[in-house]
């Protein structure tokens, strides 16, 4: 009985050592082989946002964005995420409002055509993962943690990943709202962002 106990303890210790070795950062050459590189399936992906306008919640989305994800659940240290959003593709379902959003005082798409989120670090959380990165809008960069869930599958022999999550940010942190638009009584400062992406392995 006591011997069996010792043996089990020994096995656990060994296992612990083994996982530690595995999850420790490895040289780049070794890790690139084990993480999977995913690209976006634009037709089956959405990037949406919601905001308050005149006291009511309103929704919008970006029709064009790209995503590059390097991911392996057991290689989080070597996993990263990069999202680039074409700000001219904003679609709130109202042409006049979209044009207003693209103007210099809000997105200013003439000068700042793209927004970018880059996460060099992905960490495990109780509910899934979190991309720890930096978001750039209007050339202003801020730290942002984006929680998400990810499910991988094999569809018709190809690896796919379904990634979804939501976060929130304050538009004025990024200068989205110059001049009169700095006021937050009609258009709220808080903006919710949600995404549901289908990614295919390359």
């Amino acid at each position, binding site marked *: 009985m006591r011997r069996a106990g010792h043996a089990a303890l020994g096995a656990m210790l060994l296992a612990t050592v083994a996982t530690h070795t595995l999850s420790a950062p490895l040289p780049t050459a070794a890790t690139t082989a084990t993480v999977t590189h995913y690209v976006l399936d634009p037709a089956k992906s959405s990037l949406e946002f919601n905001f308050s306008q005149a006291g009511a919640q309103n929704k919008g989305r970006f029709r064009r964005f790209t995503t590059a994800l390097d991911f392996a659940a057991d290689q989080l240290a070597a996993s990263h995420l990069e999202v680039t959003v074409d700000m001219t593709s904003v679609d709130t379902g*109202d042409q006049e409002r979209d044009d207003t959003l693209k103007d210099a005082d809000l997105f200013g798409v003439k000068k700042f055509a793209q927004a970018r989120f880059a996460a060099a670090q992905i960490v495990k959380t109780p509910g899934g993962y979190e991309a720890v990165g930096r978001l750039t809008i209007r050339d202003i960069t801020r730290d942002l943690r984006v929680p998400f869930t990810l499910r991988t599958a094999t569809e018709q022999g190809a690896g796919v990943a379904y990634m979804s999550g939501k976060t929130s940010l304050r538009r004025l942190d990024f200068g989205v709202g110059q001049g009169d638009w700095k006021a937050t009584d009609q258009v709220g400062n808080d903006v919710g962002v949600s995404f549901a992406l289908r990614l295919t392995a390359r």
Partner: protein
Amino acid sequence: MAIRNTTQRWGALAQLLHWLIVLFIIAQFTLATMFDDLPAGPRKLALLARHKSIGITILMLAAVRLAWRWTNPKPPLPDTLKPYERSLARITHALLYALLFAVPLAGWTMSSARGFPVSWFGFFTLPDLVPKNKALYEMLLTTHGVLAWTLGVVAIVHLLAALKHHFVLKDDVLRRMLPFTAPKAQGSGR
């Protein structure tokens, strides 16, 4: 003054509702002319939001008013009126009530068709009455305006009639809708 109407004069609640709605209608026309000239911006949004909130308030007050009217006695039209004048008064009042509902409802539906939900002073958001529809929005934008101007014209006819009653016919039709005035001592007991 009693809360409820009597057969002599309008009660406090009927008067309050009447005059609040008058004030709100004036505010609505003022706001509408103000934001019509503004470019898209937070100021226009603010005025539009106020306009929508007041419009919904008018709709709510109109509902209360109609319910109150149906459950209260009504001071009758003066006996001196000719039959066509009685009809005219009835049509004007019916039209005013109909428009108190129609104008805000057209505005609310128009916002829904545009895809902009209506909030009541930021306290709650009203449900959308119709799904987003650009063509319907354009149609309702015109309808809302036409109905509003119709309301304005009928209200002015109503005002002129009240003034005629007061200054020309010298009866108590206007006075019985005014607070702080005693009904004219005439044929007491009615």
